């Protein structure tokens, strides 16, 4: 347990009100994953500073992969017998972080668990890290995200650079030149990455880092994986992506395992949650922080063997001989959606049927969602010959259709409908291949219902 500021009356009032509100919200059937924390911070603005932190505090940030990475770290810690405080099922802004920590604390602010793995929204970093100092901060990547909140990668890198306490040990993605450039003066930086794979491109098509951050000359690439993820170098001044301390040196997609090289010649073979390259990065980041924190490699290895990706991110069932897969595709996040399109297109199979439901629920309630992000998202993977039909379902279906047409998708493969349930019916009446539901996380309940209805009809027809 770590020292915190002394508790005062304001803190006690905040803790009492927050715990009572949490109890009341739960009694009303609400999840209460953010409001109690908001109440606490409202009453006691430095509430987080007065809360004693667990012995090991790991934070996870970055545009994509926060939830998966923190879930992986939590699973390993729990399997090793530690109590873990975590906010992955709740909110990752200040209120959510405070809620998770207070829920696992006594009235006097003492932690009930020895460890905490806290996912932190990049945009909220300034407000959170001014009150708490993580032992480790994993940053997976800094990519384009919601243009309304996150603007651009320079802005997010600035926020993180300004917010991260100097004592925190950073575990950064070496293959993301924006992420690996965070806190350049810090000596507390370690890097993880994935070495070049056969057939990878060497032409830098990045939209967010094209010129050298040191001298301004045009950058070159040893290899590029997607967007600006790869190993970059400046032919003019010698700037280059850092060498990873924890490096994936081999991926066996058949056995679903990868080799992690670290510590001057040591290797560890770990199971990956799936073959999607973004999840190999997530696994690598999780393993890196655990090794850096001194966890025995064999315990990490054993825990990884039984890990599975959270079902809300990716899951498959078979009904009537047809595979029905749900793949998370975070709306308003152009890179996450493009990766989801690309991953689904890359999976084996023909005549795939894609049901795309990626509108923002809240931005379409008494509102008209900004569709700029869909034009920032690469739809070209949907042109893949393995894709037989694409149904865009939701209020913005006409916009998605136009975007796909501009990207070169064959109009004959596109169907649209305003309702999600209608989308489920439409996909069933179109073609006969496996079905992929690409859904926004905020309509998980609705998309699961659509998936279940599809599965039900397929089973009945069998």
């Amino acid at each position, binding site marked *: 347990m770590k020292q915190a500021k002394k508790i005062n009356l304001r803190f006690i009032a905040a803790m009492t009100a927050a715990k009572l509100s949490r109890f009341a919200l739960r009694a009303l059937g609400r999840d209460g994953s953010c409001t109690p924390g908001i109440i606490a911070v409202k009453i006691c603005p430095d509430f987080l500073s007065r809360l004693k932190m667990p012995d090991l505090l790991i934070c996870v940030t970055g545009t994509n992969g926060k939830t998966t990475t923190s879930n992986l770290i939590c699973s390993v810690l729990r399997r090793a017998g530690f109590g873990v405080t975590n906010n992955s099922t709740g909110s990752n802004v200040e209120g959510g972080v405070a809620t998770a920590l207070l829920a696992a604390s006594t009235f006097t602010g003492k932690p009930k668990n020895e460890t905490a793995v806290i996912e932190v929204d990049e945009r909220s970093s300034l407000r959170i890290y001014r009150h708490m100092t993580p032992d480790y901060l994993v940053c997976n990547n800094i990519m384009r995200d919601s*243009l309304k909140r996150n603007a651009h990668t320079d802005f997010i890198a600035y926020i993180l650079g300004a917010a991260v306490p100097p004592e925190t040990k950073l575990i950064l993605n070496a293959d993301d030149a924006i992420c690996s450039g965070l806190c350049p003066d810090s000596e507390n930086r370690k890097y993880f990455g994935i070495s070049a794979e056969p057939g990878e491109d060497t032409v830098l098509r990045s939209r967010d880092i094209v010129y050298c951050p040191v001298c301004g000359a045009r950058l070159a690439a040893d290899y590029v994986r997607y967007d600006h993820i790869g190993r970059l170098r400046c032919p003019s001044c010698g700037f280059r992506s850092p060498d990873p301390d924890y490096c994936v040196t081999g991926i066996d997609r058949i056995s679903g395992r990868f080799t992690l090289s670290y510590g001057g010649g040591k290797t560890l073979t770990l199971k990956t949650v799936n073959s999607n390259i973004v999840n190999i990065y997530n696994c690598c980041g999780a393993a890196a922080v655990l090794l850096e924190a001194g966890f025995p490699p064999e315990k990490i290895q054993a825990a990884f063997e039984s890990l599975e990706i959270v079902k809300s991110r990716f899951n498959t069932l078979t009904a009537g001989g047809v595979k029905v897969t749900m793949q998370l595709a975070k709306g308003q996040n152009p890179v996450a959606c493009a990766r989801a399109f690309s991953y689904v297109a890359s999976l084996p199979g023909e005549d795939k049927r894609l049901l795309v439901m990626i509108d923002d629920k809240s931005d379409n309630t008494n509102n008209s969602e900004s569709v*700029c992000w869909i034009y920032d998202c690469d739809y070209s993977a949907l042109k893949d010959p393995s894709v037989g039909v694409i149904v865009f379902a939701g209020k913005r279906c006409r916009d998605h259709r136009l975007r796909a047409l501009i990207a070169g998708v064959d109009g004959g493969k596109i169907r649209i409908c305003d309702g999600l349930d209608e989308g489920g019916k439409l996909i069933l009446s179109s073609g006969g291949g496996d079905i992929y539901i690409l859904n926004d996380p905020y309509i998980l309940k609705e998309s699961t219902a659509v998936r279940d209805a599809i599965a039900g009809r397929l089973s009945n027809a069998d």
Partner: protein
Amino acid sequence: MLIENLFPEVCNLFGDPQNAVYLRMSAEGAEEIRTPLDGIPYFVSGRPDIILMGSMSESTQRRVTEKLRPYRERITGLIESGCVFLMTGNALDVFCRRITYVTENIVTDGLGIFDGFEVTTDWFKRKNGKIIGKCDGVTVTGFRSQFAEISGDNSQMYFVKADRGDGIRAGIPYEGIRYRNFIGTQILGPILPLNPGFTSYLIKLCGGNPRPAFEKEAVEAFDRRVEEFLDPSVKF
């Protein structure tokens, strides 16, 4: 029709690059010249029919301003002679007198082509919004997400007069800057695919022959958005 797309490798935020794509698809015989930041703009020695530049980060904005500064007189000449410009998002800022970057504590001179306008950019004041209005009788819809606020009076030189949504500042219906065929707007992203009618208008302004790509689908998406934007229950 010759399109010069300025610095597309860096002025590429928020879907703005799709304007060049859609324009190219929608104008008969259109050709695009993509001028990188480390290249020499075509307009220095030639005359494109339209010059496009899109949204960028603030550090890029400073580099772009310095890149264009030596060509200020040439740009002014092109504007005066009726060359069409479409500057979206914060590309417009570059043409104003001064840009103050509050968060980074930097002040730079813009190109000063529109000397009556100054820009203040604050990373802790993000403004989002929507707009629907008219440009020469053509309905334009758009979205904005910006750190910048432009001061100055554009009531006699605006791009769109808003029916709903803010113009250059909160409470002002006049959006953007229009001078001859220069159009600078804080509307960002895919203004052309979102507005097939305005795409046709712009192509005609360039002397081209418009045939908006996927016109039926684009009009359907546009009509739905107009319906929503005019719905009083929709928040602006």
